[in-house]
């Protein structure tokens, strides 16, 4: 276990290092390089040289990388180019907002999907089973942002049941009821993309367990069906489902850019899109790195969790997820 743990952690650090190199290279490979991107236009040659030196752009590339990385490891993500505000100041609040949105969507999905999947596993090919299939096909073929726009059109503009966009009503910041009100539509949109697959996972996992010998033994002993399903089968069936839920954890941070854009939710995804249109590269790089850290460590956590919950997992297997 310890050896596995150490190897997985080293692997994750290596992947993170490569990601930082890749995103740094991406910046420098852009036409004109960072010089053109970060320098103010219309400067004289002399002023250009001074500004270059101040920004450290006259150094060789690897020195620039080390300096950049050193700053980031000390928690300095750089500054917003146009305003001079530290990137962290505008980034961290949006991470929290995204987590509120995605956490709510995730929770709603679990509450709906797990019971539904378990029910479907006991009634295979029933109407409810086909309905889940239908939602899966629909969910995977539909552009989420379109679904969001349609909800806005009918539920917000026509019926006026829910607010059109944003996180709080004007002057109501901090009011939990108002927040929930604003959450309904984006959560519906996001849940649709999770829902179908969680139902399927729960169902498939339950079906696998329900065909095992010990379930037959339990039934043969005359154990009530309810007890068979919930006490005997469910415990083992939940293991793979829990892992998949763990693997989805990084999506809590990165997964909602379009939904946030449609509903004007002040999250990290929307910040990324807005900053991309404003060409604020230090913010973009910071968001990419922060997301990658979440993804890599989320996956690491899921792998470790899986190894703890299910001792059958071969700890010596090569090349886990990074």
């Amino acid at each position, binding site marked *: 276990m310890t050896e596995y743990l150490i190897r997985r952690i080293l*692997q994750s650090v*290596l*992947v*993170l290092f*490569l*990601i930082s190199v*890749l*995103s740094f290279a*991406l910046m420098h490979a*852009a*036409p004109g390089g960072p010089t053109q*991107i970060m320098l103010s236009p219309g400067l004289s040659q002399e002023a250009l040289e001074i500004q270059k030196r101040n920004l450290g752009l006259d150094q060789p590339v690897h020195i620039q990388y080390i300096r950049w990385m050193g700053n980031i490891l000390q928690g300095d993500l750089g500054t917003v180019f146009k305003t001079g505000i530290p990137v962290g100041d505008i980034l961290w609040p949006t991470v929290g907002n995204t987590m509120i949105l995605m956490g709510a969507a995730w929770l709603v999905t679990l509450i709906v999907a797990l019971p539904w999947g378990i029910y479907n596993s006991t009634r295979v090919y029933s109407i409810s089973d086909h309905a889940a*299939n239908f939602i*899966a*096909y629909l969910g*995977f*073929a*539909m*552009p*989420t*942002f*379109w679904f969001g*726009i*349609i909800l*806005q*059109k009918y539920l917000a*503009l*026509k019926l006026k049941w829910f607010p059109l966009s944003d996180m709080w009503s004007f002057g109501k910041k901090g009011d939990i009821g108002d927040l929930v009100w604003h959450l309904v539509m984006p959560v519906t949109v*996001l849940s649709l*993309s999770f829902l179908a*697959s969680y139902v*399927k*996972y729960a169902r*498939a996992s339950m079906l696998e367990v329900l065909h095992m010998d010990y379930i037959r033994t339990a039934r043969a002993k005359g154990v009530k069906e309810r007890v068979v399903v919930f006490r005997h089968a469910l415990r083992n069936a939940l293991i793979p489902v829990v892992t998949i839920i763990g693997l*989805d954890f990084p*999506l809590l941070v*990165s*997964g*909602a*850019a*379009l*939904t946030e*854009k*449609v509903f004007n939710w002040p999250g990290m995804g929307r910040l*990324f*899109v807005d900053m*991309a*249109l404003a*060409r604020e590269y230090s913010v*973009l790089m910071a*968001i*990419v790195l922060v*997301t*990658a850290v979440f*993804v*890599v460590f989320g*996956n690491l956590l899921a792998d470790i969790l899986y190894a703890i919950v299910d001792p059958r997992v071969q700890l010596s297997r090569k*090349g886990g*997820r*990074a």
Partner: protein
Amino acid sequence: MSASDSALQAVKKSPGPWKIAGRKFVRNPYAMAGVFVLLFFVFVAIFAPILTPYDPAKIDLMNANLPAGSEGHLLGTDELGRDILTRLIYSTRVSLTVGFSVALASVLIGTVIGAISGYFGGWIDTILMRFVDVMYSLPSLFINILVLTLWGSSFGYMIMVLSFTSWMGVARLVRGNFLQLREMQYVEAAKAIGVSNVSIIFRHLLRNSIHPIIVYATLMVGSAILSESALSYLGLGIQAPQTSWGLMLSNAQEFMLIQPQLALYPGLCILVLVLAVNFIGDGLQNALNPKEKKKIPMRRLQQWRNEYLKSAN
């Protein structure tokens, strides 16, 4: 004698695996419906100039915001007086081009990397698979946006960056297949008679793993179409004089109070086209891998999820 003769003939006449798969595919109503819908879209894309008399980019402010069913404008016009049906028709071209070229390009990249990784193994495999891990850990939508802002939004860059961020699934699939196949005896035999590595990879191993690759490629078409619409919606994909369903949706949201029905059509087009492609992929999966009998196999679902959640959310 005659009995064994006819038996021999029966053996000779047994249809090949492709024919069996073809028959199975044709009998699948969902898959065939998907094929007809796709063919319809391809037809519309090719004959766009014949199907509509208007220019999709022509601005005609005299006829702006006409409602659906106006004379000469079946679905009405948008805020700049452009015929909506015409724009829908021309957008088909963009979606199909992006869908198929991204699927093709990423399958090519993924197959080559996966094949090399799986066939040679060892440190080559380790390095390439770490690279795949890196690419998987990067949020694709963010990378797509980043590259398009750095390089500027053009059609070519969009196809390039979408391919570059979506080949990893194929690579893992091909690698897994090759890891199993390279232990087969016919590979040993081929090596023994001096067949080169390249020949073994392309003539022997690739042919035996072509089925899952085809299925995967089909699904990639759908996810590429979704990604294109997302990027265009954000204003980073297809640019203004050109037209695309995603771009139309972004206009529609702006003018939702004036013309609410604008938002409906482009989204429906995307939905129907992607649904059709996914049905075809499903039909291929059932026809080519008879072992899989579930309605939506788990592995497929995982593929969808990866594609979908990373790119289209």
